[in-house]
């Protein structure tokens, strides 16, 4: 899509020297048993309006009381995002809408609980976190009638208040993101952190993690441009697509002499474009004022430090540890995948049992996708298998076969499986004889290979593997062929 003459470095490279400036507002539902200010269950998927109480419905005289566990989870998240935890207050954000029966949302305004954090992305990119504050979720409206199922043109709406009052943390990044790859990495890393600290189940498909994206464009060094906020971005993939679309839309407007209006836009994932939802209201239209029914939230240092001490090792540290153990790059896909699955402790156990850590990383990535954080196969058996491959007692292909069988059976002794399958290493002289035979049979391929046509090696290797019934080690065969050619 880019008009840029230079080769794009990112999928999100923009034409004519434009730069995008992106900030993300991510709402996450906290994994509590009850709501933020009342004792009704916080539970997704229940029958409509079964988790309601006077506070949820905003009935006269109902008073909110803060859920201590929600505060603890918010602090856990704040600390994991390197924030400062500070004394905070709650405000009423006033607006009139059917899914908010009090006609205000209780949120945090000028004194949020967590401020000034950051997150590191691959390539040592630092994204600032402005704040991560507590607030309550709204109810859920379903618009009935009309053509689109959207609010415009609907005949009436049905409201379910089960979600109203569910505790949320809104994490607001600084506008430090410069391309859609970083935006996707930010959301993915935030999700990993949420899962690691147990703050949220972070299921974007169920709405327990929701992204609003602020996008503007500028020429590098110029002041920030007017931004648009995009809502309804419901997957990590959509975050990247919506940002790339919106930045190019704004550039098209500006380059054709237009101006960008500050507005809220709706991402249509099916059409792959954004639409105007409404022009942005001024912040003071919400008439924020201090919530008179709640008191100061001032967690003492002892509590904060005990929460800090209880934090697990975070994904970034675990990736660094796994990379150091296995010799892999800490930003490699395998390291990300293994830590995401929570299988880094398992790889470490394989290494402790005397296994080859680098091979264990490969085995676990390839064969343990369906296993959880605690695979059934004994780590010591995987350790043995890595040793067998390293010592050339089996080939890489044979090791893979043995591994598949171990996973399928939930375990097994790799030595016994190798014996049962008749896997045995061919000694080098046997392989050399097969190489000679293949060169004789495939004289044409050999001539091409000697003439520098690397592809021709395939036919020779294929013939040798066939002759050995897969028992020859591909790496050994390749090495012998290269040595013969070099002579």
């Amino acid at each position: 899509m880019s008009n840029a003459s230079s080769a794009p470095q990112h999928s999100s490279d923009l034409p004519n020297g434009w730069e995008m400036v992106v900030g993300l507002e991510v709402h996450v539902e906290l994994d509590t048993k009850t709501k933020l200010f009342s004792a009704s269950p916080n539970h997704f998927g229940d029958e409509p309006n079964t988790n309601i109480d006077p506070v949820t419905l905003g009935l006269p005289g109902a008073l909110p009381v803060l859920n201590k566990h929600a505060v603890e989870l918010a602090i856990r998240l704040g600390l994991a995002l390197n924030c400062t935890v500070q004394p905070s207050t709650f405000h009423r954000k006033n607006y009139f809408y059917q899914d908010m029966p009090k006609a205000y949302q209780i949120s945090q305004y000028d004194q949020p609980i967590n401020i000034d954090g950051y997150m590191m992305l691959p390539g040592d990119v630092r994204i600032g976190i402005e704040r991560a504050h507590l607030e309550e979720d709204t109810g859920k409206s379903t618009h009935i009638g009309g053509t689109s199922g959207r609010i415009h043109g609907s005949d009436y709406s049905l409201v379910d208040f089960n979600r109203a009052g569910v505790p949320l943390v809104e994490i607001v990044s600084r506008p430090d993101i410069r391309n859609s790859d970083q935006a996707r990495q930010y959301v993915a890393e935030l999700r990993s952190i949420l899962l690691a600290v147990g703050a949220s189940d972070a299921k974007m498909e169920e709405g327990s993690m929701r992204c609003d994206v602020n996008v503007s464009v500028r020429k590098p060094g110029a002041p920030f441009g007017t931004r648009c906020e995009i809502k309804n971005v419901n997957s990590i993939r959509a975050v990247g697509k919506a940002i790339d679309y919106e930045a190019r839309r704004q550039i098209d407007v500006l380059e054709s002499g237009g101006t960008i209006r500050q507005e809220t836009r709706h991402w249509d994932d099916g059409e792959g474009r954004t639409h105007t939802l409404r022009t942005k209201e001024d912040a003071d239209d919400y008439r924020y004022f201090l919530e008179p029914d709640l008191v100061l939230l001032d967690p003492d240092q002892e509590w904060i430090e005990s929460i800090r001490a209880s934090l697990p090792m975070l994904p970034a540290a675990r990736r660094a540890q796994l990379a150091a153990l296995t010799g892999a790059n800490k930003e490699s896909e395998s390291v990300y995948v293994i830590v995401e699955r929570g299988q880094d402790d398992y790889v470490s156990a394989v290494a402790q049992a005397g296994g080859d850590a680098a091979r264990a990383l490969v085995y676990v990535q390839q064969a343990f996708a369906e296993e959880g954080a605690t695979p059934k196969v004994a780590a010591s058996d995987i350790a043995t298998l890595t040793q067998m491959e390293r010592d050339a007692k089996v080939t890489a292909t044979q090791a893979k076969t043995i591994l598949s069988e171990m996973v399928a059976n939930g375990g097994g002794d790799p030595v016994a499986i190798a014996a049962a399958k008749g896997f045995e290493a061919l000694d080098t002289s046997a392989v050399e004889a097969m190489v000679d035979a293949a060169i004789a049979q495939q004289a044409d391929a050999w001539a091409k290979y000697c003439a520098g046509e690397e592809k021709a090696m395939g036919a020779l290797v294929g013939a040798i593997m066939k002759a050995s019934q897969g028992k020859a080690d591909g790496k050994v065969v390749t090495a012998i062929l290269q040595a013969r050619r070099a002579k």
Partner: protein
Amino acid sequence: MSTPSSGSSPARITSEVVAKVAKLSSLHLSDAELALMTSQLSGMLDHFADIDKLDLSNVEPLAQPFPLKNVFREDVVVAGLDRDEVLAAAPAAEDGRFRVPPSLGLGEQ
């Protein structure tokens, strides 16, 4: 509050601002009510202006009049309201949910 000081000092709030706030709150004010609210709110703002004239540099900002902080409840479920009873009190209901007129609302979400 019954004698707004509209004669002695300039109005601190205009009827346009009051009308806008009323609209945001979905309050429908008659012209007479609008005039009354404007003068009353103006009187309140006069009072704050009086406070502004005082030297308060030694007074700590007060977030709450109560000498309380960290009032919590434990995260324990308590049975709430019965859905059928609640919906029976609503003007309209359908499929276990509140049925409301279509509205674009004036705010977020």
